[in-house]
């Protein structure tokens, strides 16, 4: 999967001195962080520390919020995604996103997953293959294979969220960003999604924002801890959890666990 001529250093997505400003308030403070290939990077930190803003600046969604300004670089396979020649539409094609709450479109299950593919006018057999594949990878196929034409809104919350993951996977992105995808779900549904993520992390790059530290422990390879817009510490999840280097991280983790 390596791309000839690209200096990726093994990382698919890398930020360099990434800052985000709202007016003269700095929401994100010079974050330098890498997301290596085929790993799941968890981003944790207290509410309001800039997790969502960080995630949204990785696929230029941040530009949709009026009044936010981005500084620094984000490289996708070596290309600066904020380069003037880069089209945000293509950035989002390669770097998919799943939101805090399920956001199924008012159409059938099948059409939801096919949404991105239809934009390219892919032939129907190809669309169908991708839809089935995406549903399988998202762990939803067995539950919906008999009623793909049902309105997506008739699914349960957990199923809807997995449908959103399938929808994002269908356009075969290289990176998947998830913003607290289980925060509105019950434990059983959460468990299913975590299972899905554990399989997906073998094949792609995932950045998972979560307020649930235990979840980060369960599913991630690496964890980054944010506090007040700064990246405090990042490292292999086990290391970070067992011996946090920064007292702030330790305080947060112990506050959470004990």
């Amino acid at each position: 999967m390596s791309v000839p001529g690209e200096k990726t250093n093994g990382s698919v997505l890398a930020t360099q001195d990434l800052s985000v400003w709202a007016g003269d308030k700095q929401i994100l403070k010079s974050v330098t962080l890498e997301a290596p290939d085929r790993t799941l990077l968890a981003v944790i930190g207290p509410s309001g520390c800039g997790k969502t803003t960080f995630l949204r600046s990785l696929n230029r969604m941040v530009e949709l919020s009026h009044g936010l300004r981005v500084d620094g670089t984000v490289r996708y396979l070596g290309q600066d995604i904020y380069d003037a020649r880069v089209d945000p539409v293509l950035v989002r094609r390669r770097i998919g996103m799943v939101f805090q709450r399920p956001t199924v479109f008012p159409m059938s299950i099948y059409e939801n997953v096919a949404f991105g593919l239809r934009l390219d006018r892919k032939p129907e057999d190809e669309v169908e293959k991708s839809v089935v594949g995406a549903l399988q990878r998202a762990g939803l196929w067995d539950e919906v294979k008999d009623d793909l034409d049902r309105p997506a809104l008739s699914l349960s919350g957990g199923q809807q969220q997995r449908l959103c993951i399938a929808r994002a996977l269908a356009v075969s992105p290289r990176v998947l960003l998830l913003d607290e995808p289980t925060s509105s779900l019950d434990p059983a549904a959460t468990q299913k999604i975590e299972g899905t993520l554990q399989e997906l992390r073998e094949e792609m790059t995932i950045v998972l924002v979560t307020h649930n530290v235990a979840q980060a422990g369960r599913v991630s390879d690496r964890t980054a801890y944010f506090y007040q817009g700064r990246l405090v510490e990042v490292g292999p999840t086990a290391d970070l959890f067992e011996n946090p280097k920064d007292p702030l991280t330790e305080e947060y983790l112990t506050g959470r666990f004990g």
Partner: protein
Amino acid sequence: MNATEDSLVGTSARFRRRRRVDRWLGRLLPFTFLLVILPLLDMVYWIATRALPTFSWATLTTNPSGTSGGLYGPIVGSAEILAISTTIAAAIGIAGGIYTAEFASERMAATVRFTTNLLAGVPSIVVGYFGYFALVLYFGWGASLIAGSVTLSIFILPYVFRSADLAFASVPKDLREASLGMGSTRVQYIRRVAFPVALPQVLNGVFLAMAIGLGETAPLLYTAFWNNFPPTGLNQPVGYLTGLIWNYYDEPLSFGTEVTMAFQAAFILMVVVIVLNLAIRIIGGIYARRLRGLYH
């Protein structure tokens, strides 16, 4: 996976086409505002051009006399009709709005809102027919200031009503609970807590109703009838600006005195309506800021 698929610069023909459609729509759609703004400017320009050359102090201070004269009578008449009908509509609308938002059961509130919206959809001339048959004929009020004003008040009632209802329904729930929790009665809560919060939006509805009432013609033609002079009593026929335009606009001489008077009346109406609209905007802004403060 290959280099072109990972490239973030769109090059395929299909992609460029998708992008082009989007970009051109983004550029062109806003120009549709010209289709709104140009007619408005044309209207303001031409009505001013036809009204202003002969506009003088006397226009505002003398009564119409058959085919010439000023607009004093209709101006006073419009003001009196507006004052009476707004008072009636505001009294009913605010009381009804408060009841709907604060006291009514959910089902009743839904029904009241629905019927209020239906009343707002009744054509103005149908309300005028009601005024003519019911008030002028059957009640025997005759075509008069009071018959016209009451008819108009029915027509503008929904606008006050909806605003008052919305205003009180939008007062944050915790304010109400805090207030009632501290032992104040419902009425005290409405007077001391809810009313100050809701007031701008209530006023907004009143101004909106005034702007609409001032511009209406059909409810008045057969209920207020016409008078060159300011009315001397509630039971007297009354002239008003929209009626003057209605009566004079199609006189044969395009630049004759009657048509000019009609343009002058149109000019006055336009100016007042624009000022009222500005007031509504400003008050609306205050209200939005105030509510936003309360919700934060």
